[in-house]
């Protein structure tokens, strides 16, 4: 369980975080979304005891990270991809971290196999691809069999099969009662993965909600393409619908598809496309952060 409460961080006159509050609960994957520089990494660094907050609290299982007993056994973290000495082999890197977290050698071999790096275990990490480094980072995070995972952009560098592997891993962790907090700006990938969404922009939380409410809870609309868009527009507006256009399509809010079809028939305008749409996560996100 992760609780962030009224977290504020200032660097001189710059406010990096402003009263940030949200939670990530067991059994669910929480996506922490924001543009670069929005405050995601600062929040995670405070949560993991690497940076001190100006005010507020960041708690894992009810305690600040620095007060946790055996933190590696409670929290696994991927903060930056490729954190390892390039001269060390993948296996030696994991053994070094296992000694730190109290995990055994058997766990190292188990994780090398789990993340698909057994064949590359004796290769120096300088020769690893970005995806391999990301897999090694995930193995490092999982060493202590933690219940809480805190991940910053874990999908960077992963190919489609790597992303599928990561999705499976995180879903399995959550379904076993684990807590996953996942920061990213790759919205399309997150949409297939997260249960809850926290959107941050300019250091302030703009939205916290379950994904089903965010992506499906927006105002549904119709995408319409017809022979005479102007006449269609006027006809839709006459019955109180809201109409916008991107030049090619009309976007109509406040009408069902059946009503829109009947109206088009009534004004005798042929319709070539009539598609109900709900906003996706990306559209909701861009609306909230102003489409920067």
């Amino acid at each position, binding site marked *: 369980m992760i609780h962030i409460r009224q977290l504020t961080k200032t660097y001189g006159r710059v406010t990096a975080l402003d009263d940030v509050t949200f939670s990530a609960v067991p059994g669910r994957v929480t996506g922490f979304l924001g543009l670069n520089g929005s405050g995601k990494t600062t929040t995670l660094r405070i949560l993991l005891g*690497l940076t001190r907050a100006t005010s507020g609290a960041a708690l894992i299982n009810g305690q600040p990270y*620095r007060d946790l007993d055996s933190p*590696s056994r409670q929290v696994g973290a991927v903060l930056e991809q490729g*954190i390892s000495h390039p001269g060390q082999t993948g296996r030696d890197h994991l053994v070094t*971290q296992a000694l*730190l*977290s109290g995990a055994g050698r058997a766990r190292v071999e188990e994780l090398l196999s789990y993340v698909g790096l057994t064949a590359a275990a004796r290769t120096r990490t300088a020769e690893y691809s970005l995806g391999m480094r990301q897999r090694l980072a995930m193995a490092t995070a999982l060493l202590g069999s933690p219940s809480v995972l805190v991940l910053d952009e874990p999908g960077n560098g992963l190919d489609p099969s790597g992303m599928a592997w990561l999705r499976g891993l995180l879903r399995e962790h959550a379904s076993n009662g684990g807590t996953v907090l996942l920061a990213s700006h790759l919205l399309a990938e997150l949409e297939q993965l997260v249960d809850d969404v926290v959107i941050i922009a300019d250091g302030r939380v703009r939205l916290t909600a379950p994904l089903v409410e965010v992506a499906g809870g927006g105002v549904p609309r119709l995408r319409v393409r017809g022979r005479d868009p102007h006449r269609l527009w006027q006809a839709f507006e006459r019955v109180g619908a809201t109409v916008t256009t991107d030049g090619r399509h009309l976007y109509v809010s406040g009408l069902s598809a059946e009503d829109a079809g009947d109206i088009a028939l009534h004004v005798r305008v042929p319709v070539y496309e009539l598609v109900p749409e709900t906003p996706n996560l990306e559209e909701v996100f861009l609306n909230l952060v102003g489409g920067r």
Partner: protein
Amino acid sequence: MSVLRSELYRTATLRSSRLSLVVAAAVGLVAGWFGAWWLLAGLGALAVAVLTTVRRYRHRSAILVFLGQPNRLRVLGAKCLAAALVAVVLAVVSEVVALLTSLTTG
């Protein structure tokens, strides 16, 4: 203790660290020839300690240590102890070599 073991393992498994230690031991051997092995062996150990710590920050792996042990004083203590142990091993090896050298040269 876990940080200490981790640091020692890391030092032993890094090729650059091993190379630094060999160079330091060689310098100690040469210095031993002139009777000042202890000074240069100590300096060599200090250089190895500085290099391994600097590399922790250069490759940002210091973050992993702080995630495993958030108490930075404990990390500092373990690093000092690891460096001291490496220095002792290096000094002993250098001394043995220096002793053997002095015995063989009469």
